[in-house]
């Protein structure tokens, strides 16, 4: 869809769907977790109040309803990311569990002593630590693609690492700490060409831009529901079917089996093989409502709105003396702006902003290797979503100026 034909987001109308804004907060921490509209909480409440029951087990009517609603989310998610089949859509608690699932079920089978795993310095801890554990267990080694001064990955270095024939390449499509949008399609294609299996961490991309896993060409793609208007506790692992088929279960127990005998067990078909125990039923139903909500807005329109807000914020912040913005220009970044202020620690800024009801993240953003690389301990980070309005950015600027006055 071209930008010209986009229906722009009606932000005031959108904000009415989010009761939390009646509290008066300016919420600038959506990269951490998003807010949730009535449609999502309503879908969850409806489950609790009208057909609360366990799925895949009972023969009575409300349990059938719960199962239908739970499974309906799978098709919605499949459509959102254009996977080939719902068999490729595995429910997890979130991105972290999805990546751990791959590290455990795929990695322990395929990563061997001496193998190379390529990650990037932009990765979130959830896409670093599982691989460190696996590498330590198997005697594999990890190399990290570095960044340039704009916070963008060094593609030359990546190409050199690919020449060493890595077994696995894993990276985030969008950096949660800097907002950098990585050239994922090119990187996946190059990595596949080099014979690697490729996992893309989509935690920061799925909520904010159109995603097509088949066009992307990756083997695994992980994301969380709670960053895309859904509840916490429901996330997704997409995996290409033949890879998932060949993998052993991650968690074992009820519902992931076909038959259990004392002599041994046969596992359930995809995707249920990876969904042991009673699942987060209400949360998965809520995630389905979140996907409906985003589809109603259109992911192209979501990206366009965030680009406008990001450009506005980037300009407003760049005008402040003593403020350093990290990362690429707005056109190549998602709705995330990390920055620091001379003489004011990010936590002090966040505390002062909090006094103005401005919710701002301060810290290492679960990206300590990146902070070390940048030579800083922490940044302040403002991040935006479908409901963000310019007034919230203005309030942030007011808090920054107030902090500068207090600390002057």
């Amino acid at each position, binding site marked *: 869809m071209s930008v010209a034909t986009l229906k722009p987001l009606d932000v005031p109308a959108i904000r009415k769907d989010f009761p939390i804004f009646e509290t008066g907060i300016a919420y600038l921490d959506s990269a951490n977790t998003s807010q949730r509209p009535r449609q999502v909480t309503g879908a969850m409440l409806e489950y609790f109040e009208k057909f609360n029951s366990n799925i895949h087990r009972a023969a009575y009517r409300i349990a059938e309803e719960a199962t239908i609603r739970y499974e309906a989310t799978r098709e919605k998610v499949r459509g959102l990311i254009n996977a080939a089949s719902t068999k490729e859509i595995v429910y997890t608690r979130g991105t972290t569990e999805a990546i751990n699932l791959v590290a455990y079920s795929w990695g322990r089978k395929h990563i061997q002593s001496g193998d190379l795993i390529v990650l990037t310095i932009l990765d979130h801890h959830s896409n670093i630590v599982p691989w460190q554990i696996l590498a330590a267990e198997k005697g594999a080694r990890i190399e990290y693609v570095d960044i340039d001064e704009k916070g963008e990955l060094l593609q030359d270095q990546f190409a050199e690492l690919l020449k060493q024939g890595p077994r696995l390449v894993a990276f985030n499509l969008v950096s949660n700490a800097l907002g950098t949008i990585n050239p994922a399609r090119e990187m996946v294609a190059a990595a596949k060409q080099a014979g690697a299996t490729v996992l893309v961490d989509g935690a920061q991309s799925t909520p904010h831009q159109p995603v097509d896993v088949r066009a992307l060409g990756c083997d695994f793609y992980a994301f969380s529901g709670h960053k895309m208007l859904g509840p916490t506790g429901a996330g997704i692992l997409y995996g290409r079917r033949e890879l998932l088929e060949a993998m052993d279960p991650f968690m074992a127990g009820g519902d992931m089996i076909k038959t259990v005998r004392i002599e041994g067990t046969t596992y359930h078909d995809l995707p249920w093989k990876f969904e042991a125990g009673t699942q987060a039923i209400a949360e998965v139903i809520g995630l389905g409502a979140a996907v409906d909500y985003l589809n109603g807005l259109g992911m192209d329109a979501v990206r366009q709105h965030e680009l406008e807000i990001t450009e506005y914020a980037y300009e407003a912040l760049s005008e402040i003396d003593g403020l350093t913005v990290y990362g690429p220009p707005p056109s190549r970044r998602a709705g995330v702006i990390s920055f620091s202020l001379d003489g004011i*620690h*990010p*936590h*002090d800024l966040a*505390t*002062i902003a909090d*006094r*103005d009801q401005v919710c701002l993240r*301060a*810290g*290492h953003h679960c990206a*300590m290797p990146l*902070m070390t690389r940048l030579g*800083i*301990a*922490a940044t302040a980070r403002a991040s935006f979503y479908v409901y963000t309005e310019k007034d919230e950015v203005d309030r942030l600027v*007011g*808090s920054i100026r*107030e*902090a500068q*006055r*207090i*600390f002057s």
Partner: protein
Amino acid sequence: MATADDQFYREYILDHYKNPRNFGRLDHPDISHEEDNPLCGDVVGMDFRIKDGTIEEIRFHGRGCAISQASASLLTERLKGLPLEEAKKISKQDVLGELGIDISPARIKCALLALKVLKVGAYGLAGEDEE
């Protein structure tokens, strides 16, 4: 909007942050210890010179938020000239009381980092969680 007499950033806290007391290092300290708070990158270290069981001289160094650094500065003022036995009695409540502000749970580690340096460094009470 926050104001100049904002509860959290009182003048004397800002003063201790901008003009830290007893800041620097000691040559040949009897005790030297440093702690950090990885979550926000605050670092506080202290050098002690002990004579006849009393903290004769003290310096602190570090970097981080106003709360962590002001808390360290305030603590060194209190510790200088104090017998170690007395220093041991300084509690979390004492430190928070001296700061005299409402510290949110998210910032409590900042406020108590200097006390942790004292506890672990000066009398080896390692690993006590300040939460």
